[in-house]
């Protein structure tokens, strides 16, 4: 049965208030196709009945509320998505952090809106493959998402055949994964680099470590301008001065925030937090060999 405009408005408001995701009326087909399975799972015979249940307790902490909110998130992701951000990470961002923080040897990277974890594990594989000198650093890849189910998946690091087919270079598959039945589990030395928690980017933020690099990709697109503004403002505060922000292919800080410089490098770019003056560079260790970016784009 089609969704009444009254119910659509109620749902759109609920989703906006709980997740900041904006549902325009042309998305009614999407809402219906995503909510039909939720209706069945909670024993409602129609979306109308599902909406009445939600009206009775319209919070994200209720069972129905959390299921509706989660159903409206788009979790599409894959390993090394768009490739270039991971090239920049390898050739420019990590070498810079290593140069700057050689003294305290901590590296914090945030995969904000991590979905099922492919982004975080792509980062972890870049580190393992190309930066052996980080093995005695404290490396934290902080992964957050509004969806509890996605956060759980990130923590587990188990992927289907379809997922490991997507964007993951075969040499890394054989090196970092083990096969269990029809699923693929990422090895423990990678899962141990990853910390996970549920977090709503549009809500109150928990205490986060100061981040050297933030991946905030393919999530701002779902929000309105005001939400984007307030999130980027907070991201800038979480970043170390001069820290790097990577957005999705169709996202930009332009007309949203003035806190970042767009840095072009090779055929791509990233955003750098203006955040005041750069801290002084760590003293160079005499014995350290300078980082030389490996040739080719292979991981």
């Amino acid at each position, binding site marked *: 049965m089609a969704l009444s405009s009254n119910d659509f408005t109620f749902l759109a408001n609920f989703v906006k208030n709980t997740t900041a995701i904006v549902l325009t009326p042309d998305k009614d087909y999407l809402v219906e196709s995503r909510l039909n399975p939720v209706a069945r799972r909670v024993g409602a015979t129609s979306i109308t009945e599902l909406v009445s249940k939600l009206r009775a307790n319209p919070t994200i902490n209720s069972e129905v509320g959390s299921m509706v909110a989660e159903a409206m998130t788009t979790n599409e992701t*894959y390993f*090394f998505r768009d*490739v270039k951000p991971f090239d920049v990470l390898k050739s420019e961002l990590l070498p810079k952090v290593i140069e700057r923080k050689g003294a305290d040897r901590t590296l914090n990277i945030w995969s904000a809106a991590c979905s099922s974890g492919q982004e975080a594990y792509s980062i972890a594989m870049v580190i393992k493959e190309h930066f052996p000198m980080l093995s005695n650093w404290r490396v934290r890849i902080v992964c957050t998402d509004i969806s509890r189910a996605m956060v759980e998946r990130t923590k587990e690091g188990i992927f289907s055949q379809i997922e490991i087919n*997507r964007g993951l270079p*075969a040499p890394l*598959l*054989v090196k970092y994964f083990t*096969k269990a039945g029809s699923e693929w589990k990422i090895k423990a030395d990678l899962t141990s680099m990853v910390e996970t928690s549920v977090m709503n980017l549009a809500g109150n933020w928990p205490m986060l470590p100061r981040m050297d690099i933030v991946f905030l990709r393919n999530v701002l697109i779902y929000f309105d301008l005001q939400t984007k503004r307030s999130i980027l403002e907070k991201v800038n505060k979480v970043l170390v001065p001069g820290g790097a922000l990577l957005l999705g292919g169709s996202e930009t800080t332009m007309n949203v925030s003035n806190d970042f410089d767009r840095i072009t490098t090779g055929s791509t770019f990233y955003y750098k937090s203006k955040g005041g003056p750069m801290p002084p560079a760590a003293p160079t260790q005499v014995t350290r060999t300078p980082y030389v970016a490996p040739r080719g784009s*292979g991981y």
Partner: protein
Amino acid sequence: MALAMVIDDSSATRMILARILGELGYTVEKAENGADALHKLSKMSRPELILIDWNMPVMNGYEFLVKARSMPEYDDVTMMMVTTETEIEQVLKALEAGANEYVMKPFTKDIIDEKLSLLGLGAR
């Protein structure tokens, strides 16, 4: 236009892969097995990319890969296995024999495109 070859004993798979590569900007030559591919390769200009099924009659994809990699003129050709073989040992074996990438069936256009992007050969 860049040239590619698809080697698969299933005509349906050959057609689907040829269509996908066509949409990604390739002109595609098709072959039914490794021997057929070697024969056709000897008569055409060198392709940039070859997609190779594993299990085929006459000459299977692995045998083709070993043979093609022993011929220096195909050194620069990107070779990607597209197969129902899904064990790590098989992936490793193909990589050691010189495959550049490996896709497990079933595949989609996105899967092929994402893998080719890794090799710098995405949609052109």
